[in-house]
């Protein structure tokens, strides 16, 4: 099987909610030297997207969505060890990532965390459903270079705008860079709410943050 066939298998197995088959195919892919990042991007993420579409069409229901998410999280955990680098001596910067208040979508944000720590950043994962005030308190404590906010629901995107307002009011806005992301989020949105950066996926997020931090010096 070539890697695309393996990915298609994973996508199907995820939609079928066949956890064993997903893990089996992931192991095969790893044995074939497929990069963990490609497994996540080409297989797992696409599978989740398709389930999302089926969900919005009413073909799939919430308990099934949850099951699929569980499988995906499991795969991510297994793969996270294989990203290496993690213990570079000098960190490229310190990041806080959080999914905003009212939003429990964990997978995208966790993937972003993984890739950033694999790319040599120090990462603090604030979790999901995090109120602005909690992030503000964390910023005062941790003094990060970057704060990344994830929203998967169009209704919780407003929390990204509100967080930026809260950071301005606290007089902290200029002390770090703000990245926003999540499936519905767009660059236009990011610019209009006054975020510093936006990225469609985890790898381009690293590129964008590298660029932002370079500008700062």
């Amino acid at each position, binding site marked *: 099987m070539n890697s695309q066939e393996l990915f298609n298998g994973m996508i199907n197995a995820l939609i079928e909610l066949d956890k064993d088959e997903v893990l089996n195919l992931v192991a095969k892919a790893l044995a074939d030297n497929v990069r963990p990042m490609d497994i996540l991007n080409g297989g797992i993420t696409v599978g989740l997207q398709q389930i999302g579409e089926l969900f919005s069409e009413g073909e799939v229901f919430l308990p099934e969505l949850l099951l699929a998410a569980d499988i995906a999280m499991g795969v991510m955990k297994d793969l996270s060890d294989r990203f290496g680098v993690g213990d570079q001596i000098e960190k490229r910067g310190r990041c806080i990532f959080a999914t905003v208040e009212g939003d429990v979508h964990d997978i995208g944000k966790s993937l972003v965390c993984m890739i950033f720590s694999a790319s040599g950043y120090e990462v603090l994962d604030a979790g999901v459903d995090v109120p*602005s005030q909690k992030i503000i308190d964390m910023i005062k404590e941790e003094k990060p270079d970057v704060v990344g906010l994830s929203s998967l629901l169009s209704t919780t995107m407003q929390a990204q705008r509100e967080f930026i307002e809260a950071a301005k009011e606290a007089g902290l806005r200029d002390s770090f860079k703000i990245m926003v992301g999540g499936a519905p989020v767009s660059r236009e949105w990011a610019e*209009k709410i006054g975020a510093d950066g936006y990225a469609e996926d985890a790898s381009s997020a690293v590129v964008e943050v590298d660029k932002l931090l370079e500008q700062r010096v």
Partner: protein
Amino acid sequence: MDGTRGILGIDAGGTFTDLAFLANGKIVEARVKVPTRHDDLAATIGEGIDLILREVDAWRIGDVHLASTLATNATVENKTVPSGLILIGYDEEDIKKAVDRNLFGPAEVESVPGGHDEKGNEKEPLDEAKVIESSDALLEKNVEGIAISGYFSVRNPTHEIRAKELLKLRHPNISITCGHELASELDAFKRAATAAINAGLIPIIIKLLEAVKNVMHGLGINASLSVVKGDGSLVSAEWAESHPVETVVSGPAASAMGARFLAGVKKSERPSWIVDIGGTTTDIICLDKHGNPVLKNEGASIGGHEILVKTIDIRTFGLGGDSRIVRTKDGSLKIGPRRVIPLAVAASEEPSVVNMLREIETSPSGREPVIVFPGKGKCSGMPAEERIMKKLAKGPATLEYLAHGEKIGVVHSIGQIIDKMDERGAAVIAAFTPTDALTVLRRLDKWDNQASSIGAGILASSHANAAEAEAFCLDVCEAVSRNIAWEVFRKALCDDGLISKNSEYDSHLKIGLRSRELETGPGITLHLNGNMIGVGAPAWAFMERAASMLSEKAALPEDAPVGGAVGAAVGTFFMRHVLLITPLVKTGGFRVHLPNGIKDFDDLEKAASDSVNFMIPWLKSMAAEAGGTAPEIEWTRKDEVAIISGGARSIHLWTRIMFNVEDGGA
């Protein structure tokens, strides 16, 4: 006596106080300039009026408009009176840090539970008993005014308003300032600092305005007194007495408006760009098509104090008639930002300068026409510097002479050592400047051109003849004009939001400006589409060319030296207010952030129309308080949306209703 009644404009600036009397269709009938006495502004103004009255009968002065540096100076020099600051709903740790960083200046700080969040929801109820208690504590410390600042008060001011009500009952004779009355931007700490400074300025401005009224009375002038704000608008003396912080940087605003008026820009569909070229720096100010200054919301930094009021947006850069010109290693010319004494001026005061320049000209290592004069500043203690100062004590000298006998390290860095001494005032540098270029070309004949010519020759090339030196001076003039054109154009692009302030497009732009003259490319022509108006002593020499580089003509108004006073005289009342409506996601409704609190609606259209209905009478009464006699209100609405979900949908960010209040009576 004939004549009609008119307006007396006064601009009490840092160095001079200008006065101008305008009547009969706003013709400047009298103008006066007197040195400003900082210890007694009212007396200075009295002196000026006295001189005006030699040309104009007192009865003809119907209105007096005053722009002054009082608020700016008192803030810069930390001369505000002690005020108290009540913070509502601020984090205690944050307050401590802010006080440690001296963010609130000399204000005494008290903290009270309450405040709101970013949505405008109450974070915690206002502790009213604590408000009273805090104010009593502050008064015991002898504060002369109290400022109140609530967390997110610009999203919901009810706690500030309630606290003010309570304080008015408790201490009816003390002035009370609320943060949301002065600032509309987010940043709880800057708003608090702004409110505290305002409270500390109130007694000072009252004293000045009362003294000016007395002076006017004493001279038989029966006129109303108005004050120019930092956004260029004119308000009643009463309003200024409760909002003095809004008068910071009113001087430059008045000057810009005066320049536009004097340049004869009538009703125009185009903005105006005022370029004020001085000895050391050049200021650029943009006036919109109505003639009102373009403002910035981020506030201003005044002597290290961050003040969050709307002020005129000035871009200042280090280029002027006395800017030092050096040749960089790659052979190009660098003009400014340091100010020096032009060679022509130095030679007129010290004839030996010419001979020293000749020495540099013939010296094999002579590259820079620089003469060093002794300064009044102190020596850094560095041994080489001590020796240099000893040599200078005998009189001005060349760099070569100062380096003579020094170790090789000092010889190589003599230029940098002298620059550092110049910064500290331990030495004063005379060097080639745009003023010298004009002198060589005989466009300026205030001084003998010998020193300037030798200087030009040295910079032009090692053995330049007179023609080459002149060609070099033409290059200098061209470069000065190009720098000005470039700064104007760049600011225009920034203001349009097309590039950011520290944009990397700079070099492309610079090439764009030269594209036609270089004749290497398609010959791009840049067009500013705005009136260009030059003021300041050397403006005549550089503005015409700078304007032509942007396909415009430059106006160089007469009477520009009293432009500030003229601008004050022609100033009118106006007011801007922006109302914010935010989506409420949980209920699908909308929240209007009104000046007296929040109001929720199910429907955006209803939210917008109801708030306009609320705002118009509110703005009218506000305008009446501020001195607008017949306010006319226009408004525009902007719904901000963004495309999301890969183009599948759009999302509503907020709606802004922008109110523009103008004085129909003026």
